């Protein structure tokens, strides 16, 4: 009985139930919703959001927050495309991905130095670097969109895991880019749960002071976290550009609140030390559903922001309130 109540109180379970309810309601109002093409579209829409969300989850687990990752993604994506178009149009796509991830990691390292090196508050630092990265990109690199992206990147977006035609004649396909989301999840799972580094990330999120006393290199761990998020943002950026077949420097920025919403919905706590990949992926699924399919439920698209905001407040408010009640009962 208590185990049941525990499972029900978990964010993952709640989010899964909300998703289920959403899907059932959407299917009832429009039977075409529950079909392979819709699911493939949603999967496709969750690639970039999902990779970014995994990065943000790692930061939250370490006890920080990062809002600059979308600017990093746009910066890395645009610079890489520009570099490729101007100097090396024949670089294979994995080369482009490596360049973009390297740029992302470098920008992440700047956050890392400011946060781990100077001990500045993470929200304010990343708000500042968000403006710096974006301002630098648009002032000095370029503000015009590149529509003739290298053919290698275009070819990458055409590589499909599955493709087919539904009974009613609608096409569906799932690009290989989805495999990158799966890959990122696996790599992050290994880092978080199978290495000392992962233990260190959880430990400093739980308590910096305790982590320091058991001999964890707090600064080095924090530095790694921001570099890792930067690299993931670079990857998400280049995948976004490849799939959109255009590098738009104004893209992605503005998405950060939705990504953070997905992660906190999935149960990761802002005070650090707690977060799961399952929860994060469920959170991403819910946000993608709200962003793409709210209309199916008969809710106008203009209400999308309200719905996401309310979901954040409920998703974070419920556990916070439970924790507060538990604490006052213990006292």
């Amino acid at each position: 009985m208590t185990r049941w109540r525990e499972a029900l109180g978990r964010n993952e379970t709640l989010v899964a139930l909300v998703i289920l309810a959403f899907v059932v309601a959407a299917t009832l109002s429009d039977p075409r919703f529950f079909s392979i093409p819709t699911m493939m579209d949603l999967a496709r829409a969750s690639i970039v959001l999902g990779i970014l969300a995994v990065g943000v989850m790692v930061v939250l687990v370490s006890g920080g927050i990062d809002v600059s990752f979308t600017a990093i993604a746009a910066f890395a994506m645009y610079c890489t495309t520009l570099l490729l178009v101007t100097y090396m149009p024949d670089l294979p796509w994995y080369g482009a991905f490596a360049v973009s991830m390297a740029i992302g990691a470098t920008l992440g390292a700047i956050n890392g130095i400011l946060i781990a090196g100077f001990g500045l508050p993470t929200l304010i630092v990343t708000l500042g670097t968000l403006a710096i990265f974006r301002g630098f990109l648009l002032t000095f690199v370029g503000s015009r969109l590149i529509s003739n992206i290298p053919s290698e990147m275009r070819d990458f977006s055409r590589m499909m895991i599955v493709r087919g035609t539904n009974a009613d004649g609608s096409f569906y396909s799932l690009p290989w880019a989805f495999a990158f989301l799966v890959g990122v999840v696996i790599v992050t799972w290994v880092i978080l749960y199978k290495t000392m580094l992962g233990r260190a990330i959880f430990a400093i999120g739980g308590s910096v002071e305790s982590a320091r006393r058991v001999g964890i290199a707090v600064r080095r761990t924090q530095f790694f976290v921001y570099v890792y998020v930067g690299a993931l943002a670079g990857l998400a950026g280049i995948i976004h550009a490849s799939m959109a077949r255009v590098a738009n420097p104004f893209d992605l920025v503005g998405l950060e609140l939705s990504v953070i919403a997905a992660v906190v919905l999935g149960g990761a706590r802002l005070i650090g030390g707690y977060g799961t990949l399952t929860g994060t992926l469920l959170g991403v699924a819910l946000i993608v559903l709200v962003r793409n399919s709210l209309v199916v439920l008969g809710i106008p698209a203009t209400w999308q922001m309200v719905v996401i905001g309310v979901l954040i407040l409920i998703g974070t408010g419920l556990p916070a309130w439970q924790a507060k009640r538990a604490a006052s009962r213990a006292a």
Partner: protein
Amino acid sequence: MTPERIRGLLVQPEGRLALITLLVFLLMAWLTPDRFLSVQNLTSMAFQFPEFAILALAMTIVMLTGGIDLSVIGVANLAAIVAALLLTQIVGPGVAEHGTFWVVVAMLAALAVGALAGLVNGVLVAWLGLPPILATLGSGLVFTGFGVALTGGSAVMGLPAEMAWIGNGRLWGIPVPLVLFAGLALLLWFVLTHTAFGLKVRMFGANPLAARFAAIDINAMLLRVYVSAGMLSAVAGLLIMSRANSAKFDYGSSYLLLAILIAVLGGVNPYGGYGRIIGVVLAVLSMQFLSSGLNMLGVSNFARELIWGSLLILVMVINASPNFRILPRGWQPPGARQGPPG
């Protein structure tokens, strides 16, 4: 003044800030002498800065408690949209007859929206125990989202002429927005330094546990802080609406960064406990001089964002490094307590 006295002034963050403000002013006056110092430019600055300066005041009072309010812009725009819809949709054509009366009603409605929004934030933070970042991030989305839903995403236009006064009018020859900002800054200064409430705010920011053991009703205090921030945001929203002669959900979207930047630049400790209104006022002035001067030099909006961001980081780095070379020996950052990262 003796050198000792000057040194004493410069040891305080506000003293250094006054120096920075003066330097920025002189630099800009030197770079574009004929335009920057013109009466026209000085008055146009007095009309421009109060809208984000008031948002910075809202940010300051929340930061004093160690929190942050990411919803200020959402509240400002929602309040403006409600006021604008009241004037154009509900009252409609009849507004021309009793223009002033309806404008006052609309402003009161905007303030009520601000207070209500602040109440929501306060309840989330104080009663439900949400971290202020998350509470105001979520509520900011909700407030902005209501703005979108109410207007369908487009601007509300056709405001009565009387609405223009608060943003563009003059009172005894002084721009109304400036009078409003000066009044609110003075009021906030008085409340923070001369009332029990102000003492509680700073005490809680400096040490929440000690404040609780001192039997301060923390929930009531936080509630009042967030309601004040919401009402200040609503005033800023009214100014923005009056100056733009319309209301829209995404007006002033760069002001959030600016409000945080000004508060931090003004010496307010983001971990709470320390901050003075005079510092915030000086920070506002230096930002406006910088912004206006850069504008005259033909610097793009993107570059301005870059400069603001760099400035924010620079100030944080200087304030966080007690041994920074520029500063006099023995200087301690305000509230030199080591806070947790986050």
